[in-house]
């Protein structure tokens, strides 16, 4: 039996890796991948705790499971929109490197 804290540490580390990637990467697709990593870290955290709470309650609650499913669906919708935006930018500018796309400043 793997203790709960391991899952939480894994989730926190994954979230931090994703956050670091989202801040440091210049390529928009890489930023998107990093953000997905953050969302999946959250899912690990939720499911681990859902399991833990269900065990300590003695019966299965559905809330954590539903939440994880909703997160996956919302993340998929976000990726669909995000990739569409990235493609639209690419068509105009022929690059997806965020730091090269800088007409707006001041």
């Amino acid at each position: 039996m793997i203790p709960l804290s391991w899952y939480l540490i894994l989730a926190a580390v994954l979230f931090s890796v994703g956050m670091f990637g989202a801040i440091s990467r210049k390529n928009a697709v890489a930023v998107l991948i990093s953000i997905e990593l953050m969302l999946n870290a959250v899912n690990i955290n939720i499911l681990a705790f859902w399991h833990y709470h269900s065990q300590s309650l003695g019966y299965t609650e559905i809330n954590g499971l539903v939440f994880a499913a909703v997160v996956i669906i919302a993340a998929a919708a976000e990726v669909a929109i995000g990739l569409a935006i990235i493609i639209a930018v690419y068509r105009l500018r022929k690059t997806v490197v965020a730091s090269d796309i800088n007409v707006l400043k001041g």
Partner: protein
Amino acid sequence: MTRMIDIYSILPVMIVAGWALLLLVVDLWIPRHRKGITALLAAIGLAIALGFVLASSGNTILGFNQMVVLDGFSSFMQVLFLVSGMVAVALAYDYIQRMNINHGEFYVLMMFSIAGMMLMSQAYNLLMVFLALELLSIPLYVLTGFARTRLESEEASLKYFLLGAFASGFVLYGTALIFSATGQLDFVGIAAVVTAGSANSVLFLIGAALLLVGFGFKIAAVPFQMWTPDVYQGAPTPVTAFMSVAVKAAGFAALMRVFLVLFPSLSEHLTPILWVMAALTMIVGNIVALAQNNIKRMLAYSAIAHAGYILMAFVAFGNGEVVGNTVAATLFYLVAYGLTSFGAWALVIVIEREYGKGILLDDLAGIGKHYPWLGVAMLVFMLSFAGVPLTMGFWGKFYLFRTAVQAGYIGLAIIGLLTSVASAYYYLRVVVYMFMKPGEPKLQINPWVSLVIGVAALAVLLLSLIPWTILELASRAVLLLQ
């Protein structure tokens, strides 16, 4: 088992979302040059929903196993969202024709976003908060990039999307940690666990802080404001107007609902953070706005500063004695700011010749002479933004400052007053350019846009004579909040 009362509690949201889905199909049969029909249908849908909101206001219902709540607070916010939606449709109708982005999806996406905001004001479960946040944000990413042949628009969209998705990651992690700490997702359950004292306080606090970060992005509070100027500048102007009013209001709706119901016990930890955030937001927003000569950017920084004023009153969220005033003052301010903001953005729409062109301060020269009523209307909006008496903006600021002083945050109120004085410089500079610089502006003024400007200007002036009526409505919304 779904009861009728559950359906009744979210009927307006269902009408807006369902109407948008139908409109998406109907729009296929509307020819390209008659997209005004789509705009009209969208406005009718919003008006019907508004009717249902007004008819069901005054009730308090917990629907769908406490997933959503219908109360005075949600009704007040929903009226605000629906009216902003209708104003945005009126502003967009002429604009998207002129900018050659005349697609019917514009109105449909706006309706989806409004449905998300309405759900946000009703959410009584962290899952619903997240879902509503996504439902309001995702159509907005698309709307921001709606002018898909313009690089400004696409860049703004990309920036908004990446930072928005990043922020929703924080909201999610915060939600997960609160779930970890309490084992519950719905507000009633979480509040019960917290009151019983069996929540893990460390995880709970970190979760609350992460939620604050996520909502901070949505309301554009410093230090999470960096996307705002770029997105406001690059997006089509009616979308910017809609964002600066409705999205900000939705962010504050979520912030108030979540913090007032779940986190009063954490107020001693969160109050210093909020204090610093409010002070920074007011200072940065107002100081940076001084240096802008693009009107869209200037109004963007001004929007950041106004979020700071609201946060100033919100710092007292854990103080049970003044929290009612906080909510009433915030709701009042959102109305006052919304009226002023829509008027000012409508004027930007009038002077914007081409996409993103003609919106520098120099382009305002001569408007006061050649179009005197436009000049006077802009004068009213700028005075209201600056908080000069006899405008709604004055009363909004008055109630916010009063709440801050009541709660004992005199230092914060002084920072607010000083930055407010500084803001008069850049607001009045707009008026100086309009009335005192010579110029020969040639404007095409659409009747719908002038209607928005006229009504907003009159409302800002006339409602300031009877501000207590709106404050009373806002106070009644408070009573049913918790």
